């Protein structure tokens, strides 16, 4: 105590006090606002890490800054949702050019996908990845969803969500085994041949209703026995003609054959 008191007139005392004050204030501020500081830092980290992922996996076609090339669209303004859908379903990175990028095993880890999404989102404002609330199927009304689905989606994706053919090798993929987040992102961003259903033309509640409808019918057993893929008269006709007719012909041959 005496030692401290004896040095308080020391020429360096004022400077030491000033530094001490600044450090304490700074620490206190950092302690009070940890989330913001860390989040901003993490976001910046994600974007720069995402850029590395982008350069390694996407830049060959989409350009080093995502500006697009002749056969690859610009990624400026497509948003994180488009990345999460395209890369999260394995459609991108594209394996080979063709009429349509098919669903594939996912090639990037979820961390890398979110970093990539953060980078692409930083290129321009676009649709974000939906939160858990927006895609909670239990909060949707499957009956209303079915109504909307029949008018807006069923002509391509089949009324039971089993998919269907388009022109020149393109197709609407089946909606079974698709996660609610990817369903939402597909509506929001309109990947490939699919048109866009943004939040103004198809409000978030309607999207949730559609997701609820699709997850409901996916769980539903087929009341008629075998569903035969649920794609309507094509598979049913095929089974009737190939298997049913073969059985009938077999019976006819047996009827006509002479007993030995």
């Amino acid at each position, binding site marked *: 105590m005496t030692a401290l008191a004896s040095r308080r007139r020391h020429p360096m005392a004022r400077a030491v006090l000033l530094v001490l004050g600044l450090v304490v204030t700074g620490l206190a501020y950092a302690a009070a606002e940890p989330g913001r500081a860390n989040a901003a830092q993490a976001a910046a980290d994600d974007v720069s890490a995402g850029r590395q992922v982008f350069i390694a996996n996407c830049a060959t076609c989409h350009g080093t800054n995502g500006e697009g090339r002749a056969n690859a669209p610009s990624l400026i303004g497509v948003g994180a949702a488009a990345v999460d859908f395209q890369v999260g379903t394995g459609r991108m990175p594209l394996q080979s050019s063709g009429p349509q990028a098919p669903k594939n095993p996912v090639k990037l880890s979820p961390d890398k996908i979110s970093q990539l999404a953060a980078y692409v989102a930083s290129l321009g404002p676009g649709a974000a990845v939906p939160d858990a609330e927006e895609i909670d199927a239990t909060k949707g009304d499957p009956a209303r969803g079915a109504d909307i689905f029949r008018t807006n989606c069923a002509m391509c994706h089949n009324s039971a969500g089993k998919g269907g053919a388009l022109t020149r090798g393109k197709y609407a993929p089946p909606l079974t085994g698709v996660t609610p987040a990817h369903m939402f992102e597909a509506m929001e961003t309109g990947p490939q041949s699919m048109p866009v259903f943004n939040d103004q033309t198809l409000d978030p509640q309607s999207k949730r209703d559609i997701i609820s409808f699709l997850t409901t019918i996916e769980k539903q057993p087929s009341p008629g*026995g075998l569903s035969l893929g649920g794609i309507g008269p094509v598979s049913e006709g095929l089974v009737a003609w190939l298997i049913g007719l073969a059985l009938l012909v077999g019976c006819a041959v047996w009827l006509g054959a002479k007993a030995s």
Partner: protein
Amino acid sequence: MSDGNETMSTHDDAGHATEVATTESAGQPAARFDNPGLPEHQHRVTDVDPKAAKRAERQVALMFLLSVVGTLIVLVTYFSVKYEGHNDLMSRLTQVQHSTVLMGLGMFLALFGIGAGAVHWAKTLMPDDERVEYRHLQRSSEEDRAAAVGILREGAEEVGLGRRPLIRNTLIGALALFPLPAVVLLRDTGPMPGRDLETTVWKQGTRLVKDPEGGAVKASDLTLGSIVHIMPEGIEKTADPAAERAKAAVLLVRLDPADLNEESKKGAYEGIVAYSKICTHLGCPVALYEQRTHHLLCPCHQSTFDLTDNCRVVFGPAKRPLPQLPITVDDEGYLVAAAGFNQPVGPSFWERA
């Protein structure tokens, strides 16, 4: 020996062999051939081996028993698979599935068992030796034929139509007119369409509302590549909403204005175009929109329309482009029809101008 061959051989027996051979081999020397008769009867295993017969008997009985089992499955399923107490839709549907599959399987066994047993019985155990039954001439005797003709002649003479032309002519007239009411009554099979096929609810200022959720659409709501299924506002208040909906359905799409040609731009608003959703081929809803190619595909017969070229037909059986609904915005920024359709929507019909 099948029945067909037997009748052939009896046919020969009846003395027509020469005639047939002569006519069939015209230009060649007529060949007589002897009746080859029936081939030797081949006995089945079950005819000669009592053990095999016994085995066949057991097989037939087994098939009939299978049928009994099938019937029992149907009955047991009907009474044991309950829907009550399954308030949850999923478990209820599972019950329906079990019931359908089991009852279907049971009915199949029940019916097929009887049929298969009967056929197996007939083929293995019932007598299969050949029997010959001769055919006979179908023609009546000459005097019977002459008598019949005589009766008809006499009848015609007695009726005397030739002598009484008044009766004959009035009878012909009455018979000719008799079906007319039936033809006239066809009018009542349905109301005449009138001008229904040429008109829709759309007129200048009608707001575009979303189908099926409802709600007017602002031009700013549509981003590039957006598509909205549209009905005219107030269509539910019309006299026959279902019939009006079938004609008034419209697709609203936003494209890059640079992609649209001059003709498409006429009814467009800042790259937003509205076209009838009813195919000009057979009236299916054309709603498969491919965003990248700007093509609209009809699911029924693959007619394809190019949105950037005023919905010209680029593929398929449709002969006319989809009619465009010219649109604009009202004071509040909502999209409205600038006018109705300038031609009838949907497939062709006889009176179509």
